[in-house]
């Protein structure tokens, strides 16, 4: 059924169709309409789930962890400062191998107080051991939630489905909402190997001596390394059932490109428009949209960028004292694996400043004009 819905509600419908059993959330700013609709669905018996309203995001994640341990399929959503408050528990969820799925609306971190988009909130949680997937359309948000449950429950690692504030979260688009029966066929019920139950007592997350801790982390990394293949496999299954392929990256007109943009989030879609405009001007441009950021899809990125002539990475985030974070990651992924390719790093759109096709065209032109990067960061649209 096709419906015009906002990105926040794409997350809600994704959780509903996935038959989430426990939803725990803090209901006030920076929360969005995601859990508002889910609480209605629970109250109206559209969704047979326990809705737990808590006093903070820290407690939201804590109750998700408890519910997941008890064997429930668990969902929550947050944003910005709320995600930061969860930080400690993000480690608990991944370290304890609990396949919670969470929606995060990418909002800039305060101060200055902001409700507008950039990626520093979720990228600050890069090393917490969560799968991170950055979406570009409301359809992709809904599809990705369903797929994320499948991936997370198979590999027992939690997933964060990320979308830009306002540009997706409050923007209405046409979304094909799949039939429940088809989603049920794609996503079987959650049946963990071990659960927290009085009938069969186990201790979880106890003291772990140097004798064992290292191996737990080794196993988490080894399983993370399996995730790209798992995402491709589940994407293929998804495509067979629903006609859409929720993959690792999206390469658009990259084959013969003289300049390849690397983008993420909604910028990854606006960049397609810029690429088409550049091609009409006779400039061979391409766009590689990175959708899955953790685990970093090394293999496919090396394959696509290995053929590139010049690469221009656009970051809506910054690691202060370093570079844009996707820029760092792309450079480290291809260094030593491909021929020497000039890679340029751009920072644009922090705190929700708009990123237009014209901005992206300017970025491509800049990279084409220079032989090598001359600045650590090229700033787009900043008032200096």
């Amino acid at each position, binding site marked *: 059924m096709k419906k015009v819905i906002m990105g926040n509600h794409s997350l809600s419908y994704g959780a509903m169709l996935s038959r989430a059993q426990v939803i725990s959330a803090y209901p006030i700013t920076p929360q969005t309409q995601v859990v508002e609709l889910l609480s209605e669905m629970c109250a109206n018996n559209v969704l047979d789930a326990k809705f737990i309203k808590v006093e903070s995001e820290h407690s939201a994640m804590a109750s998700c962890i408890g519910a997941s341990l008890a064997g429930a399929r668990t969902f929550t959503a947050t944003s910005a400062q709320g995600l930061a408050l969860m930080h400690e528990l993000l480690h608990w969820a991944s370290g304890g191998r609990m396949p919670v799925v969470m929606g995060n609306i990418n909002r800039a971190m305060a101060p200055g107080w902001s409700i*507008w988009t950039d990626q520093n909130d979720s990228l600050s949680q890069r090393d917490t051991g969560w799968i991170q997937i950055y979406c*570009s359309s409301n359809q992709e948000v809904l599809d990705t939630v369903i797929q994320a449950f499948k991936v997370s429950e198979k590999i027992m690692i939690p997933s964060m489905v990320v979308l*830009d504030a306002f*540009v997706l979260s409050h923007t209405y*688009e046409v979304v094909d909402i799949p039939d429940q029966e088809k989603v049920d066929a794609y996503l079987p019920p959650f049946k963990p190997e071990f659960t927290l139950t009085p009938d069969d007592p186990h201790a979880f997350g106890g003291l772990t001596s140097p004798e064992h801790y290292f191996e737990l982390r080794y196993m988490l990394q080894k399983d993370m390394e399996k995730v790209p293949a798992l995402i491709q496999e589940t994407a293929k299954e998804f495509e067979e059932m629903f006609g859409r392929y929720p993959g690792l990256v999206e390469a658009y007109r990259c084959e013969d490109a003289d300049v390849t943009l690397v983008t993420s989030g909604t910028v990854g879609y606006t960049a397609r*428009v810029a690429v088409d405009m550049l091609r009409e001007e006779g400039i061979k441009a391409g766009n590689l949209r990175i959708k899955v950021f953790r685990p970093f899809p090394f293999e496919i990125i090396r394959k696509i960028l290995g053929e590139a002539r010049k690469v221009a990475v656009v970051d809506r985030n910054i690691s202060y004292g370093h570079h844009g974070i996707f820029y760092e990651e792309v450079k480290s992924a291809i260094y030593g694996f491909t021929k020497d390719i000039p890679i340029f790093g751009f920072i644009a759109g922090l705190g929700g400043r*708009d990123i*237009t*096709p014209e901005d992206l065209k300017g970025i491509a032109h800049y990279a084409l004009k220079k032989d090598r990067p001359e600045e650590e960061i090229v700033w787009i649209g900043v008032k200096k």
Partner: protein
Amino acid sequence: MIEIRFHGRGGQGTVVASKILADAIAKEGKYVQAYPEFGVERRGAPVFAFLRIDDKPIYDKSRIYAPDHVIVVDPTLIEAIDVTEGLKEGGWIIVNSDKNPEQLKFPQKFNVATINATHIAVKHKLGTMAAPIVNTAIVGAVVKVLKLGNIESVLEAVKEGVPAKSEENAAAAKEAYEKA
């Protein structure tokens, strides 16, 4: 691609109007993208809403700066702000007003249409003269003037999207469609 900007005041249902219009057009099999002004809304302050319409998927996620058409839900805004900012030549300005298009004195390069949505809303008992709920009447008029679809899609979208006074809202949309 068609890009439309809505002007209203906080509390008048301007964002809802853009959403109902998006629903109606999506029913015709087109792609739509509707978004409010990104920020916080205050009752009575000028607000904006935006709508893109296309036959193919819409990838541009940047904001609309040069709309093809503008819709003015509250006529007092014409005095307060420049509702034609960035508007393309030949574009329509559709105003909720009891005046004739000529009386509004917009530059010749734009097309102007007026619809007395306030009168239609009050007649169908949607709000009061002081605070009329005009969004469904506006949508009916816009669909007619811009030839965006048929009235059946609008009525369906109104009935689905407006749970309160569904019949009255549908009747207002229909009357505005016929009068525009």
